[in-house]
């Protein structure tokens, strides 16, 4: 099991990695739901980058 520190460090990267992987694979096997899921699977990581890169700095 992951230590609390590792969990804090890796939860997001692993979640996004699994999401990307699922998106890359579903579009290979299906042209309807699979394509739609791939847009989510690859779109969320892109949005995550955009959010953290451009969000305003916290006041504290």
């Amino acid at each position, binding site marked *: 099991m992951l230590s609390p*520190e*590792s969990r804090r*460090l*890796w*939860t*997001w*990267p692993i979640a*996004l*990695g699994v999401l*990307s*992987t699922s998106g*890359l694979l579903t*579009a*290979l*096997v*299906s*042209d309807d739901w*699979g*394509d739609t899921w*791939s*847009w989510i699977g*690859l*779109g969320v*990581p*892109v949005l*995550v*980058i955009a*959010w*953290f*890169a451009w969000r305003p*700095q916290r006041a504290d």
Partner: protein
Amino acid sequence: MLSSRAIRIWTWLHKWTSLICTLFMLLLCLTGLPLIFHHEIGHLLGDEIEAPELPAAMDRQRVSLDTMAQAAKAQHPQLIIQYAGENEDDPRLWWFTLAATPEPTSDYKSVAVDARTGLVVREYRIGEGFMDLMFRLHVDMFAGLPGKLFLGFMGLLLLIALVSGVVLYAPFMRKLDFGAVRKDRSTRVKWLDLHNLIGIVTLVWCFVVGATGMINTWAELLVQYWQYDKVSALLAPYKNQPLLKAEERAPLQASLDTAMHAGDKRKVSFIAFPGTAFSSPHHNTFFLKGSTPLTSKLLQPLLIDARSSQLTAAPELPWYLTALLVSQPLHFGDYGGMPMKILWALLDVATIVVLGSGLYLWLRKPQGARKSAKGVAAGSLDEAKSPETAAA
């Protein structure tokens, strides 16, 4: 947790694998960007060939393969047909490639023929224009197989850089929340954080595109190995026979009929004519494909005697060529419609930012970084002034 010695080794690995491949990866990312949209750009430039408007009732009508081949050959009577196949997007069109010899060459013509009427529609533009330049720079930098294998090796370095980057992510992010970008610190710290953020988020995509690109560079070698390993045994009865003369060949339609009868897949991906790299001097080799998203990537080869039109062999495609074919869309990003292409382009741009910021972090290595990186070895990373000193 990583020991300080381990951190230094991984840092060294990350630095050098990245530095060596970065310029080539930038080239691949920049040339790959328009290639994602090659269909759309070809359309805009008028390079894509459209089937002429004919009554819909004619859509399923087909002339014989011989009629189409004759039409293509009439365009270039001095050349011979190497390959032919059904247009991937529009079954009403077939393409024929012609060259001076059956040997592999980059000097060839490609003709689109209307399968309903047997009339030539137009010639594809080969070896000219912006997209062709992008393609050649992306695939082999105009250096043929050695160029391809070189880029494949750069891809391998990229994969090592990605793995070492993930290992180093932990010590750099230990005191930071996910996604933290410290904009109130120096420019270098901001770009270090962005490098870590974008790098870790695009990791899977970048690894998959890098790995499949690397595998693609081995395609020619894999096909040659398969022919040597398996196909040569099947062709033993034909060993040492010269290239079958054109006048000894049976009508092509008879071969096509045999293929359609013998194969359990129904669409022609492509046909390799006698003497070409994908066939034997004596055979029309048909590569059939299925019509679902997955089976359309799985090819079934059928070796059909070009004189008798009889099936000689239907070898299984080996696992490594199947793996290559299935992995290709994962490199091209062309299997999930326009939204996927746009995401592919955005991830490509994100990768350019990771490459550029990595280069910047190396160039703007703080003074005395080497010394303090050694100092870090004594304690843990965050005891040092900041991770920025160790990033060099």
